């Protein structure tokens, strides 16, 4: 039995069934096969709850990763003491967040956690890139060739359109910037959007027909801001 379950054919068939069922039923409204039938609602409800149940994956992965760092007393990529501190914060936030006693999502204690830690630091983590844009603007964004020169000029016009100070230079700045945004850049972004959608369409057909099984290896890890 285990040998059969270990093979990839069944998961691939499951992916194909759920994908094809929802995709085809979207187009039809027959009494026995309809987008609004109870059966379709139940299948979608099933997939929804199943998706939410994966809430612990990231949690356990972090605990295993940093637990391993502590167990092996690693120095690289960071000193294991920091991993210990990470797990402490993780535990405190979990205890404060679970609906035990007067703790929970809407408890004052959890508000202290996200008001004092999560909100300021998440914002700062994203904003660090603003510094790198500043230093890159000074050192890397050079008009090395025609394309880079045109790009920098247009970026400057867009910046002067966004920033109120740009209006001091005159009306033409805002007019040019919004024209560029709503006409050529819109056309270019539409071209990219169409080609991107075709790319994911082709990838989806490969996954449905079982020709692409990379996704079976693991959940996305290492994503960033």
């Amino acid at each position, binding site marked *: 039995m285990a040998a059969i379950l270990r093979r990839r054919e*069944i998961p691939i068939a*499951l*992916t*194909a069934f*759920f*994908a094809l069922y*929802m995709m085809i039923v979207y187009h039809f409204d027959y009494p026995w096969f309809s987008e609004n039938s109870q059966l379709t609602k139940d*299948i*979608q*409800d*099933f*997939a*929804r*709850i199943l998706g*939410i*149940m994966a809430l*612990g*994956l990231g*949690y356990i992965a972090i605990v295993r990763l940093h637990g391993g760092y502590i167990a092996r007393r690693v120095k690289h990529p960071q000193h294991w003491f920091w*991993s210990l*501190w990470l797990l402490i*914060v*993780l535990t405190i*936030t979990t205890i404060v967040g679970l*609906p035990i006693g007067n703790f*929970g*999502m809407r408890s004052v204690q959890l508000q202290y956690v996200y008001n004092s*830690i*999560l909100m*300021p*630091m*998440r*914002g*700062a*983590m*994203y904003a660090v890139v*603003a*510094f790198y844009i500043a230093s890159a603007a000074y050192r890397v964004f050079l008009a090395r060739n025609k*394309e880079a020169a*045109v*790009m920098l*000029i*247009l970026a*400057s016009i*867009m*910046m002067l359109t966004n920033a109120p100070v740009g209006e001091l230079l005159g009306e033409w700045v805002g007019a040019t910037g919004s024209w560029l945004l709503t*006409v*050529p*850049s819109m*056309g*270019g972004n*539409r*071209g*990219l959007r*169409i080609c991107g959608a075709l790319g994911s369409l082709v990838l*989806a057909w490969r996954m*449905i027909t079982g020709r692409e099984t990379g*996704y*079976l290896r693991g*959940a996305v890890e290492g994503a960033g801001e």
Partner: protein
Amino acid sequence: MATIWDDLTLFLTVWGTLCVYSYTFKDNPFWKWGTNTLVGGYIAYSAISNIDYMAKNVINPMMTKVNWVHVAAILVGFLWYFRFWKKYYYLYRYALAISVGSGIGITLAKSVSSNIIKQVASTMLPLYGTGTLRGDFDNIVIVVSVLSVMTYFIFTIAHEGPVGKPIGWISKVGRWVLVITFGIDFGNVIAARMSLFIGTVKTLMLPQHQTLFAIIGTVIMIYLVGTELAKRRKVAPEITAP
């Protein structure tokens, strides 16, 4: 009456923000405190908010009326966690397969409609006769931009020969449209990242945070500059030695 917790929140808000920003000076213990606190806190936070949703909207209503679809989904949902068990790793694939399959199923047909069909339909614009010269010109630029960028991403036709040559020219136009598009995108990326930075500076400059901002900022700067100079002085003597 500000409790100890309110004061701690004020301190941690300023302290956390400056710890993250200390990374721009160099990798240092303040940064390590910040990033580890944030990763730990955020992972726990998103897990408990999903648990809270499940408790409130799925499990609580089941106390009165059992919904067997939800019960089945929760049971199958435990298959996710076989990912961490080497021996039965393959069971994890069943939950993943259903999740990925339904993700594709509910998006593909609608994405074709919104990202392909509607986009092409909205590009079918009259190239003249819109009444204003500006309107005609805009439509011409839109149609040319969209079609040339699509031509740029055609890879199975070489840019030689009777058919390939014109495709080559059109894709050169497409390349320039992309340069314009990236120029505009770039201007907006700068605005976005600057706004984030300004948002955090506004928080730091709130009346109740200003003094803390000055004190903590100075302490961190002294530490960073101090260790930097100390490192340089430690390195410098070897160079000057004969």
